[in-house]
């Protein structure tokens, strides 16, 4: 099978961990694991529940109703010309994607310590699987958003620009995913090493929501403080998302470029860190 030349080995394990981690070919070999994990995630999530996958829709609907009451009626934040229900739902659906993917990824070492300490597979499979299942949830929730959008356009006086701009959504979603993955991977290494970071993640993501136009449009923010919101690389993505669906949002090309380059640089840095540090964390978790 193999030749007896002693210098030819299939693999080698040394003390040095690599920045580049598993090769793409190796990751590809584990694609079935990714599929299996996504499947088991769904099966587990809704087993022994009465409503099953309906929870996927109930959660954003209930949140939208709460926001409608609290921020729309009680606090009175204007949503511009857009119907508040659509406005909040769009924000919530996209925020959920970011929030779930980020917090999920950030704790993979702690959540999977048992698995990681017993069997080898490219660790990146786990965050990718998590991201995939959150994307599926997002797709289902977006379909509901689309139904609501069509309802509003057909049966109310509100109307917006052509549906053609919905084609921008994959770009937005791709960038949001990349950003949540990048932050998640970086924080997974940190939470693996330092337990306190877990609390920072929980707190930080809640605070970040207020710096992201989820419950308010950027145009509602006074000029003086708008820079603070726009410093957040998520802001242009949320505004673009709303603009594509609802025709309202403030976003410029330069902001988008800022967000994109931020995301890509962070993603590269996070992947390298994850590969380099991932092996060592097993000793520590």
């Amino acid at each position: 099978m193999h030749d007896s030349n002693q210098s030819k080995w299939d693999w080698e394990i040394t003390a040095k961990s690599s920045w580049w981690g598993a090769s793409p070919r190796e990751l590809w070999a584990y694609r079935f694991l990714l599929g299996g994990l996504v499947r088991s995630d769904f099966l587990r999530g809704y087993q022994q529940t009465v409503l099953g996958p309906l929870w996927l829709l109930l959660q954003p609907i209930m949140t939208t109703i709460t926001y409608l009451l609290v921020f729309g009626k009680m606090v009175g934040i204007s949503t511009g010309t857009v119907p508040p229900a659509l406005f909040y739902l769009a924000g919530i659906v996209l925020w959920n994607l970011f929030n779930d993917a980020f917090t999920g990824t950030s704790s993979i070492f702690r959540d999977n310590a048992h698995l990681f300490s017993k069997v080898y597979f490219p660790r990146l499979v786990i965050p990718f699987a998590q991201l995939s299942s959150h994307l599926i949830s997002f797709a289902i929730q977006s379909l509901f958003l689309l139904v609501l959008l069509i309802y509003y356009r057909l049966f109310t006086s509100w109307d917006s620009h052509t549906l053609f701009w919905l084609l921008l959504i994959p770009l937005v979603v791709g960038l949001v995913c990349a950003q949540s993955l990048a932050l998640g991977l970086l924080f997974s290494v940190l939470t693996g090493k330092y337990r306190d970071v877990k609390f920072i993640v929980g707190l930080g993501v809640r605070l970040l929501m207020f710096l992201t136009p989820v419950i308010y449009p950027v145009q509602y923010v006074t000029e003086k403080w708008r820079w603070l919101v726009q410093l957040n690389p998520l802001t242009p993505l949320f505004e673009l998302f709303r603009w594509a669906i609802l025709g309202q949002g403030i976003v410029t090309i330069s902001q988008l470029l800022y967000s994109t380059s931020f995301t890509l640089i962070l993603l590269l840095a996070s992947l390298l860190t994850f590969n380099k540090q991932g092996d060592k964390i097993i000793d520590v978790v």
Partner: protein
Amino acid sequence: MSTVAIQVESLSKRYRLGTIGTGSLRQDVQRWWTTAIRKKEDPFFLADSATQQKQALWALQDISFEVQQGEVLGIVGNNGAGKSTLLKIISRIVRPTQGTVRGRGRINSLLEVGTGFQPDLTGRDNILLSGYILGMSKAEVRAKFDEIVAFAGIERFLDTPVKRYSSGMYVRLAFAVAAHLEPDILILDEVLAVGDSEFQKKCLGKIREVSHHTGRTILFVSHSMQAITNLCDKGMWLHQGKIKKIGTASAVVNEYLVSAQRIQLKQKWDDATLAPGNERIRLKLVELVPHLLTPDSPVDVRTPLTFKIEFWNLLPGETSLSMGLHLYTYSGECVFDRPTPDSLCNQGLIKAECTIPGDFLNDGAYYFSFVITRDTSVDLFRYEECLSFELEDFRGDYNYYGKWLGVVRPNFPFKLIQAGVESFAS
């Protein structure tokens, strides 16, 4: 011409005791700042090498060996000898601190039975998932699916969540998945510690089949010396992170057993005033002599043992003495109480001998106590736990690997005989 499947070269793994890293983010940042940016010495690195030695635990130290293709290597050693660490490094779960492991072919490791099982999923889903975790493709799992199910014997429960399985079913399923993979190198850590004896036997059979018929390389850690000698060609004894011996499986196992035995086979007192005893009885010698089959073999269930005692009788005149010899297991059960008949003894040295035949006691740890009495009723001297010994297991031709029940294991003749060939009819 044989090929090397795994080559381990001066492999070391160090764990730091106590806090890992410096323990906090603030100190790690501070350390990074001083070492990486200001290029100074690590403020948390203890210059005092003695302190540092105390804080470092070398789980493995400078290990080098080779495993040939198709060879079954059994690894023995006490708890904490580094066996699992070694397997974890070869399985790519943890990184070594120093050294290199090189190899040929795909590795699959079963460091724990049931890794990656999701309790909420059905048996069917879990078979697929654990196959994927071990790096199989969908087609590979599907091809083996029926075989796995049959081996585990869970046909009826395929669509039941595994959390409702009995622990035996769970373990069977978990092992079945791993055993039906087709890696070039299989790594097994204590997989036989679980499951009932029937299943253990099945597992061993499977492992043997895998190694002998398909020529796969296997690294096997077990505390069952029986399994190691039966399955492995080569043995390696790890002791405190170093290789103590490497050689044929039976030689390594023997040497390991001899060293590991908790034995006090002899107590001798040259100075009578320091010897245990009282104004009536004073001990001189207690000894247990094993009659070994070969000089380097361990004391096992086949070994006859002779108990010897010598003591001073300090009582004046002619006394009617007797002695009771008690054998206890370390769990506290009395195996036997063997009295001597009364003998008339004068002042002076008295001795006695008692031989326990081989093939009588079960494997395990035992100790002797004795009592010396006058006129069968008055205790003169009692000595608890004067000698202790362990008997290793030996099973020869028996294909049974579970714990052999009972305190004794006498070798009474007992066998099945074909009494007739006609079929059963009511």
